[in-house]
């Protein structure tokens, strides 16, 4: 009896950790599926505001969670602008003045090129695994797909922008379909919704992502994947500061 009680107690203790582990694994699986070991994508970004819209197209390369390079293809004025992220450092190459600017960390929480994405969203997604604790909430259905609902709370000392993230991940195909971003006070700030699920780079993934800020009516940013290639071998030197001026 004592033994059973002891084992039961032990299981109770370990259970939350086991579930946390599993929730994290699911987020990791979805994250890895969307990123691959390396990825190369062309993306159209639409910034929608009441009264006007702007469109931008970019080419992006990623390797693991630490290396990202983004080249702006359009509009004409910004063509050739490059963002390079290595671990937590970010550089911005501006071809018209031929200068490479190291960005201050405070700029990370700002809007990226006027969109509803922050610089942080763009380059620090990795932290959804390392900087947060993960737990399961009730199951949800998003666009007729059954999803895990997972809550992410930042670890005590993590330097993150969000106070809470709630994401819905497709149970069968491990796609992030719906993500809600909350601030430190628990107020909803942004909602991301993903649709247009199709084969991209040999994987079933949503090709359209919409980011909608909660408190700004009529504002929206839409990301459209035009092409996506996974796991092409890329050398780390591709992501060095010297290459920022040469990439095309």
């Amino acid at each position: 009896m004592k033994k059973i009680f002891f084992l039961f107690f032990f299981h109770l203790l370990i259970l939350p950790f086991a579930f946390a582990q599993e929730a994290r694994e699911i987020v990791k699986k979805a994250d890895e599926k969307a990123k691959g070991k390396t990825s190369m994508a062309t993306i159209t970004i639409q910034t929608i505001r009441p009264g006007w819209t702007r469109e931008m197209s970019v080419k992006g390369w990623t390797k693991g969670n630490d290396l990202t390079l983004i080249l702006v293809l359009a509009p004409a004025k910004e063509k050739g602008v490059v963002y390079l992220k290595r671990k937590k450092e970010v550089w911005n190459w501006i071809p018209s003045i031929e200068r490479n600017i190291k960005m201050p960390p405070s700029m990370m929480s700002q809007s990226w090129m006027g969109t509803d994405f922050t610089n942080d969203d763009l380059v620090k997604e990795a932290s959804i695994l390392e900087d947060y604790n993960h737990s399961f909430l009730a199951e949800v259905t998003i666009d007729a797909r059954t999803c895990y609902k997972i809550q992410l709370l930042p670890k005590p000392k993590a330097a993150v922008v969000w106070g809470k993230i709630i994401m819905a991940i497709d149970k069968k195909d491990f796609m992030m379909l719906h993500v809600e971003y909350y601030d430190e006070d628990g107020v909803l700030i942004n909602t991301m919704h993903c649709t247009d699920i199709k084969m991209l780079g040999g994987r079933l993934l949503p090709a359209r992502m919409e980011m909608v800020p909660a408190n700004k009516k009529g504002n929206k940013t839409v990301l459209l994947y035009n092409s996506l290639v996974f796991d092409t071998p890329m050398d780390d030197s591709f992501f060095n500061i010297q290459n920022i001026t040469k990439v095309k």
Partner: protein
Amino acid sequence: MKFYKSILTCILCFICTTFFAQKYSTKTPWIELNGYIKDMQSTYFIQKIDSNASMNLIHNRLNFKFTISPKISGRLEIRNRIFYGEQVKQISDFGKAINQYNGILNLSHLWINEKSFVAHSVIDRMLLQYADEKWDIKIGRQRINWGINNIWNPNDIFNAYNFLDFDYEERPGNDAIRIQRNLNNSSALELAYKPGKYKDDHTVAFLYKINKWKYDFQFLGGMYQTDYVVGGGWAGNIKEAGFKGELSYFIPKRNTLETSDTFSISIMADQTFKNDWYVSLAGLYNSNPTNAFVSSGSFYNSNLSAKNLFPFRYNFYATVLKTISPIKSFNFSFIYSPEKNTVILVPVYAWNVATNFDLDFTAQSFFSEQNNTYQNLITEIYIRGRWSF
């Protein structure tokens, strides 16, 4: 001249090809063209609003990029400007004043040089580039930008510029050779040589760049015209704020009564705040100031150099930028020097009216103590439209 004409003919022939190539090819076309057309109306006031003069500037830039092979490419960039109006008339020999370059090749031409109408073209980039994973070699007219800070760059020994000349963001080029070698993923060595027309006109220097402890560091040394130069700079952060700096020390090659060592250092910090506010602060110290100040700095190729970035010993700069919306921003810059309490105020309102069309309003107002009174020397207002392609 003949050379210039043949280049222009080539360009005109290729323009059509480029558009065709860009439309129907998904690969990098072997020739690409981009640029802009700007129209800028400017008016200045000297103290009283009724003593003013205006000028219009039509400004076109053509940037051609040639991809000859995956490793070899070329660039040809042309700046065409047409000035007309009262202001042109007021500056004696305006055409000649803007048509200056003391490099080896003469790649500019004054098409029309009348009293109040000037048309001018200059090729400010014309280079061949070889680039592979390790090497990056550029020969020809180019901009060698070794600066780190946003306003004053003591390390910018090849292409120092006047930040008040805001309508020339590309900055002039230099006829030079630049060789860059990547040592590993976080460091590189660079060598640049700019031959001069005269004996004391050469500049040759090396630059070593390294990324360590989340900072970018650089060190440079070489010969800068009549001086030896050593210097360095850094870009990093203190907590959330960016923290950058540059310094250069110039030692005359020959000691005479008129020469002395010059030390120039510039430090800046910048940070973004909630609700899209951005603040940047900078300071410049120059041990050997000229104290000569031309208030309307915009249209002259003033004698600015890395040794003499601003006329005074102590110079301070502050800018506040508010991004009103992704397409509208307001920026206010304040420049101050204790020398005659010189102040320059520069408000800018920028608006991206439509994709590829920008409109901005800029003012530059200069204040200083003159003849024992503190006064506004000149205020210049600019309205500028830009269509990019």
